[in-house]
């Protein structure tokens, strides 16, 4: 399986069940298809249904609500954050067929992000033993003659000998003749002791190491060698990003002019104001007419019906500015010239979702109010087509 960024596409799907957060997916029912092309690719589906997840390797993507397509390299790059998702989407290296929101909103919610666990080579006893000759300290072993045998058990079992004689050290597989001392232990205990994660004395006391022969020779062995260090264990430089979430409560004074506007909403009325000089209407009302630089004190009721002059149908799930929550898409802010308004003075509000597919410039619309308006922008639910 071809690796990119130190992982394979298979790793992503193999770890999916472990990364799944069922409590976040209680109300979700969706089949998502994934196609990773190129070497190391394949097709998978993830079926999230009421807090359960089924990941399957498939030969074709059938019945999926949303499918995600990319080369295996892009797939891993985006999943690992090495490639910015929005850039991959923009350049079409990553393609989403269906509702793109799932990628941005649902997936980050229901899955713990995929990360590559740096493949630390599992250190084996053999790796250490073959370096022992180079770690030998002849100056400390003057006049010493001894043969130490290691009988290492467990999955990595092997037998080795260290022969020290005439200021030299030889390491060989198998037992030397005439062992001064023989140590029997699990191979993992040996590597633990050599790398410092297991204390030798404790291991002996707890019976993990058995010593046959000259116990003092066994204890002295360490003196004749430099300490072993794992070449892969160097700690990587760590770059730390701090995460902060700000939440601020605010209060804004509306002032007497906007105060009248909000009071009008309570009566289900749009109260604009009218410049005494140029006669243009302003909605919502403004304190002065910026063109004539004059106070505007005359209020007039506008609308409530109006004509659509332009609109935006929004598919991108931007945050709701009032709650921070991801908005349900599509939604459509529309620009309306209310009846009685000056021709340049448009008003903007959201359109009823059911009317989005039928909206056009020139359409007539009317506001839909809440039952008990309180003097807030929430008093108008939306505008709907006036038919």
């Amino acid at each position, binding site marked *: 399986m071809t690796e990119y960024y130190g992982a394979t596409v298979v790793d992503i799907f193999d770890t999916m069940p472990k990364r799944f957060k069922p409590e976040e997916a209680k109300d979700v029912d969706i089949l998502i298809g994934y196609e990773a092309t190129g070497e190391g690719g394949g097709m998978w589906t993830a079926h999230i249904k009421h807090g359960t997840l089924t990941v399957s390797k498939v030969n074709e993507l059938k019945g999926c609500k949303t499918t995600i397509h990319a080369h295996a390299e892009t797939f891993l790059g985006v999943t690992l954050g090495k490639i*910015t998702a*929005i*850039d991959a*989407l*923009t*350049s*079409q290296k990553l*393609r*989403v067929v269906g509702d*793109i929101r799932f990628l941005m909103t649902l997936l980050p919610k229901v899955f713990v992000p995929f990360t590559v666990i740096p493949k630390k080579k599992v250190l084996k006893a053999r790796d250490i033993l073959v370096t022992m000759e180079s770690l030998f300290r002849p100056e400390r072993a003057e006049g010493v003659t001894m043969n130490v045998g290691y009988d290492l058990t467990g999955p990595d079992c092997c037998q080795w000998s260290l022969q020290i004689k005439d200021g030299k050290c030889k390491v060989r597989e198998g037992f030397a003749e005439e062992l001064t001392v023989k140590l029997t232990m699990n191979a993992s205990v040996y590597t633990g002791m050599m790398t410092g994660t297991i204390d030798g004395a404790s291991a002996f006391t707890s019976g993990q190491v058995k010593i046959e022969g000259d116990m003092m020779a066994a204890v002295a062995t360490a003196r004749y060698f430099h300490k072993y260090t794992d070449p892969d264990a160097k700690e990587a430089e760590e*770059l730390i*990003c701090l995460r902060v979430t*700000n939440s601020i409560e*605010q209060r*804004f004074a*509306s002032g007497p002019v*906007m105060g009248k*506007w909000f009071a009008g909403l309570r009566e289900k009325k749009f109260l604009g104001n009218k410049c005494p000089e140029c006669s243009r209407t302003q909605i*919502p009302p*403004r304190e002065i007419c*910026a*063109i004539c630089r004059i106070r505007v004190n005359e209020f007039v009721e506008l609308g409530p019906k109006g*004509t659509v*002059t*332009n*609109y*935006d*149908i*929004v*598919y*991108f799930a*931007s*945050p709701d*500015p*009032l709650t*921070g929550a991801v908005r349900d898409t599509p939604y459509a*802010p529309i*620009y309306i*010239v209310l009846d009685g308004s*000056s*021709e*340049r*003075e*448009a*008003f*903007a*509000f*959201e359109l009823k979702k059911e009317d989005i597919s039928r909206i056009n*410039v020139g359409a007539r619309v009317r506001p839909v109010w809440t039952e008990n308006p309180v003097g807030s*922008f*929430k008093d108008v639910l939306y505008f709907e087509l006036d038919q």
Partner: protein
Amino acid sequence: MKKHQKNRNVAIIGIGQTIMSSHKEDQNQVEMVQEAVINALQDANLSINDIDCIVHGNMELFEMQFAPNLWHSLGTGSRGKDEYRITTGGTTGMTLVCAADNLVASGLYDTVLAIGMEKLQEGNTTGGITNMADPLWFRNIQTGALTGTAATEMINEFGEERAKRAAIKYRIMMDKHAVLNPRAHRRFGLEYEQAEELAATSPQLVGELRLIHMCSQSDGACAMILTSEEKAKKRTHKPPVWIRDHMQTHREETIPNLFGHVKPELTHHYCARKLYERNGITNPVEYFDVFEMYDPSAWWALEWLREFFLLKGDEHINMLERGDFDLDGKIPINPSGGVIASNPIGATAMLRPAEAALQIRGDAGAHQIKKEVKHALASGFGGTYWTTLMILEKDLNWQEVDND
């Protein structure tokens, strides 16, 4: 129009940029700012001791850090110097250059360092933009910086096929320029053969504004050093680029009024009209050799080219179709790749005069225009439609216009 004359001429003598990217986790804000400052000082062959005053700007709402210039002083070198902080939304970067120009022209300071920066990765751009809307009424319907109205209007005016083809052609042209600029953030390697597929399949954001049309969110910083004519002429390191004039235009503050039954004159058109008038420029397309435009999306870019060049009907589309805006065209647009390629917002509008000045110096590298660049135009754009426009010159030989 009132007479507008500088007290003394001002030159750009140092330009420094970081590489723009979506990921700058290896640098904090201070280090990123310092990289741009060092690059600008080296470009000008100056040391920080030669700087008399610093102007600093970005968008506080994006990183949610109050008065970041205090923190950044470690990277800007402002300790013990006069410093002003300026933030004007999307136009911040160019407003900084305008302010530095005014500070030097006034005679208050000889050499001023302007620094614009943004680390969009450290905040929430759409959230920040939304919080700029009128808190009393408009916040509930704000959609961030995304709007498809320009697309709707162009499709209505020029027909769906032609309008869509033009928008995607502009986008691919920007990518072709960005590929040549090693500092640009998004360099996709798009080809014109992909136009049809991209236009049809790129995900829709708002109406016909698709993901491919929209600008990036980038991290990066830009720094520029401005000095007086007297000092600039004593230097031989690199040729100075002269700031001839600049103008900022704002509009009455309500977005819906852009969409009444009658379309108002856009600030871009107003600003261009007034600035050319003040400088006696009657045919901007003939006069300028390059235009570095603040282009937040391919649709807006096209619509705005008509406004900035005071064109009529479909002249701007014709020019695009003829290749006039290409790197080797009649008047190249954004040799740098523009905002569509790189958008560290507080630096974005500074990159426009910075890149235009590099073109005049003939110093832009792989994205240098082949023919000589004498007159350059640079624009900035902000929020609910405001405009900054700047004219840069290679030679100090323009005619003052007598407007009395």
